[in-house]
């Protein structure tokens, strides 16, 4: 026989001081539904768990309505009490009588009392109609897939491997290191990119848990968090993998400033990357370097700051002053972006070594003059308006990082999204490094232009997030919500009433619904419980109420609406 017990929290007077709890309890007992009701001084203290648990057990309760504050601590204590009494947590309705009633209606005792009674009636009604979503479990594959072996990918693979996770590292080119391999020097120190990345590469070779696949590409990814089925095209042929999580660290490309500042026309107009190459191969005779910042960045087509171009230009400008006898470096900029203590120090060092800075306005860019080679760069100083004519042997253009060429195809493979600039979209700001697909994480410049240290930090962060899935032996669909703890439930299709209209498929932000052919030409919606986050859009667009979330179905809502106002 169904026995519901109502627990009302006095909250040490915070609630009882406004609401007539004993009266409310009395009315509930007299309502004739076999309810029992108790007013308790608190529901959240440690000792309350034992006390409530015993009370509920002695009364033979199988459902509970708890009226008190909405604080999580109370729920934890309640959860323990329910455990003691052997009651399913889904059979407990929480009613907010404090923040939602006593504390905001202190000047209207009668109104507050009526409201409290109504809220409790709504809670009781919800219990009557509340359903439970079935759960599904999947065995979690203990391996991880990391796409891209640049600083982010290497850091991720290293972090994972050190914790015992076998990691498949898929890299498009023949070697690990990404863009680091192209850098002749990595600021703020003196080593070149290859040396900086060497420890990571060594770990790659030495740690048996990292399986490196150079000259390989990901061809397809199916499945879901805990069990992704991946097809990789490696140098030795196709490879099928199964991974519990995927980290995308594919880096970015560099913008080529075609036709800007006479790039492509005059030989001595080069990009920062090309300068790196020259340091290695031979800097030539050039002595007077002019750096131009924000080339193709912070403009309508690419309205972002690429983070690393200012530090990079400063690094190169300092190097010109220090290593080239008679060298001169001038940096033409719209702003110098050097956040943090290390970079700020570097900026000052640049000024101390004699690097000159001229600020120009966006609407008055510098002009490169010369017929066969670069002769001069003319720039109008933003402060004062004077036009400087700077004789130059080389003009170095600082261009931004842009989304990698493969981003579009990769996003379709994985089912994740790109942001408005073409980089992989994370579910900012609440879930850093996560994407709309559970189990797929992003790190490094694939996500946003960053320095190699930041990329490495993000790689580790993504690894830790991936571990959150990988360490579980099996993961249940109800645990994969956007909340800690249990998901509300899943969408559920009522057998036989689905018309196959596809509204749910179109509206779901997580691509959790799909239409399946039942065999006789009839299409019926099916919910992928792993992907479903119980946001409820499918329910609201279903034309005939076929799709419901059992824990919040329309019967329940209807019952609550009926009880909302008692007079």
């Amino acid at each position, binding site marked *: 026989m169904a026995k519901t017990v109502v627990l009302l929290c006095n909250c040490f007077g915070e609630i009882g001081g406004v609401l007539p709890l004993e009266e409310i309890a009395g009315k509930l007992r007299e309502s004739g539904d076999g309810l029992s009701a108790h007013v308790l001084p608190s529901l959240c203290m440690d000792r309350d768990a034992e006390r409530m648990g015993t009370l509920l057990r002695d009364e033979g309760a199988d459902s509970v309505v708890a009226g008190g504050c909405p604080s999580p601590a109370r729920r934890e204590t309640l959860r323990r009490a329910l455990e003691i009494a052997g009651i399913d947590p889904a059979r407990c309705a929480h009613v907010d009588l404090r923040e939602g009633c006593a504390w905001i209606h202190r000047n209207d005792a009668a109104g507050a009392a009526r409201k409290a009674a109504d809220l409790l009636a*709504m809670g009781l009604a919800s219990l009557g109609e509340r359903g439970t979503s079935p759960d599904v479990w999947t065995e979690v594959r203990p391996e991880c897939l990391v796409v891209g072996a640049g600083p982010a990918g290497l850091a991720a693979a290293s972090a994972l491997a050190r914790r015992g996770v076998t990691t498949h590292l898929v890299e498009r080119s023949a070697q690990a290191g990404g863009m680091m391999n192209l850098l002749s020097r990595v600021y703020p120190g003196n080593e070149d990119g290859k040396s900086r990345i060497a420890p990571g590469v060594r770990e790659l070779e030495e740690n048996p848990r990292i399986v490196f696949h150079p000259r390989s590409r990901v061809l397809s990814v199916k499945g879901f968090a805990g069990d992704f089925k991946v097809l990789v095209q490696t140098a030795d042929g196709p490879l099928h993998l199964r991974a519990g999580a995927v980290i995308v660290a594919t880096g970015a490309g560099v913008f080529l400033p075609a036709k800007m500042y006479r790039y492509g026309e005059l030989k001595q107009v080069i990009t920062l990357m090309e300068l790196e190459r020259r340091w290695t191969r031979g800097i030539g005779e050039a002595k007077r370097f002019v750096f131009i910042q924000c080339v193709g960045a912070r403009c309508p087509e690419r309205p972002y700051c690429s983070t690393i171009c200012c530090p990079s230009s400063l690094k190169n400008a300092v190097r010109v002053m220090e290593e080239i006898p008679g060298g001169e470096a001038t940096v033409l900029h719209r702003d110098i972006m050097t956040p943090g203590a290390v970079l700020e120090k570097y900026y000052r060092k640049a000024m101390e070594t004699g690097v000159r800075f001229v600020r120009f306005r966006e609407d008055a860019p510098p002009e490169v003059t010369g017929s066969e080679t670069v002769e001069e760069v003319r720039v109008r100083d933003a402060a004062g308006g004077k036009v400087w004519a700077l004789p130059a042997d080389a003009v170095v253009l600082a261009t931004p990082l842009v989304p990698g060429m493969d981003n579009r195809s990769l996003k379709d493979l994985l089912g994740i999204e790109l942001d408005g600039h073409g980089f992989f979209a994370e579910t900012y700001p609440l879930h850093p490094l996560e994407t709309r697909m559970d189990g797929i994480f992003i790190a490094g410049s694939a996500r946003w232009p960053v320095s190699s240290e930041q990329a490495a930090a993000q790689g580790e962060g993504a690894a830790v997030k991936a571990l959150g899935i990988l360490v579980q032996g099996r993961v249940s669909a109800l645990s994969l919500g956007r909340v800690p703890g249990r998901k509300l439930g899943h969408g559920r299709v009522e057998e036989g009433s689905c018309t196959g209209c596809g509204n749910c498929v179109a509206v779901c932000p997580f691509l959790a619904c799909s239409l399946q052919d039942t065999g006789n030409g009839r299409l019926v919606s099916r919910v992928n419980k792993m992907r479903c986050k119980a946001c409820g*859009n499918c329910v609201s667009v279903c034309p005939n109420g076929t799709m419901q979330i059992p824990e919040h179905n329309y019967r329940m809502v209807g019952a609550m609406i009926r009880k909302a106002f008692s007079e």
Partner: protein
Amino acid sequence: METASERNEGKPVKILVFACRWCGGIGAERAGWKRADLPASFRVIPVECAALVEPDAVFRALAAGIDGVAVLGCHVGGCRYDEANHAALKRMELLKVLLDTAGIGGERLCLAFGTAHEDHQFAAVMGDFHRLLQGMPPLAPWTGGGDEDSPRSVGT
């Protein structure tokens, strides 16, 4: 700012609030922490996301004699379920158009997408909505399904 008793001298109103678990619900909670003084005319049904508010539930509420329905959700772009609240907002705004057509008044559906950590917003929204509804005519011709002259309960 009128007092509770002043408010109560006006016409009583009934408001049903669907507050999402995040911005909506947390905004409401914070109003509680601040001990905001609000009219006791509203009842909250917590929902996971504003997307879970079925339009038909709004009609059901109005038919049950409730004067106004408020749907509280997160900023467009700040929804924990990614873009779930985009469709919800569009849907609710279209619902307002229908309520306007029928003369019930789109104002009876109050949409506040963004009352997150801004507790004063929750208080302001509820206070304003309460006052607005006090000034509106009753829905009586619409609720109950008819008047005494029309035939009812045909062949039970």
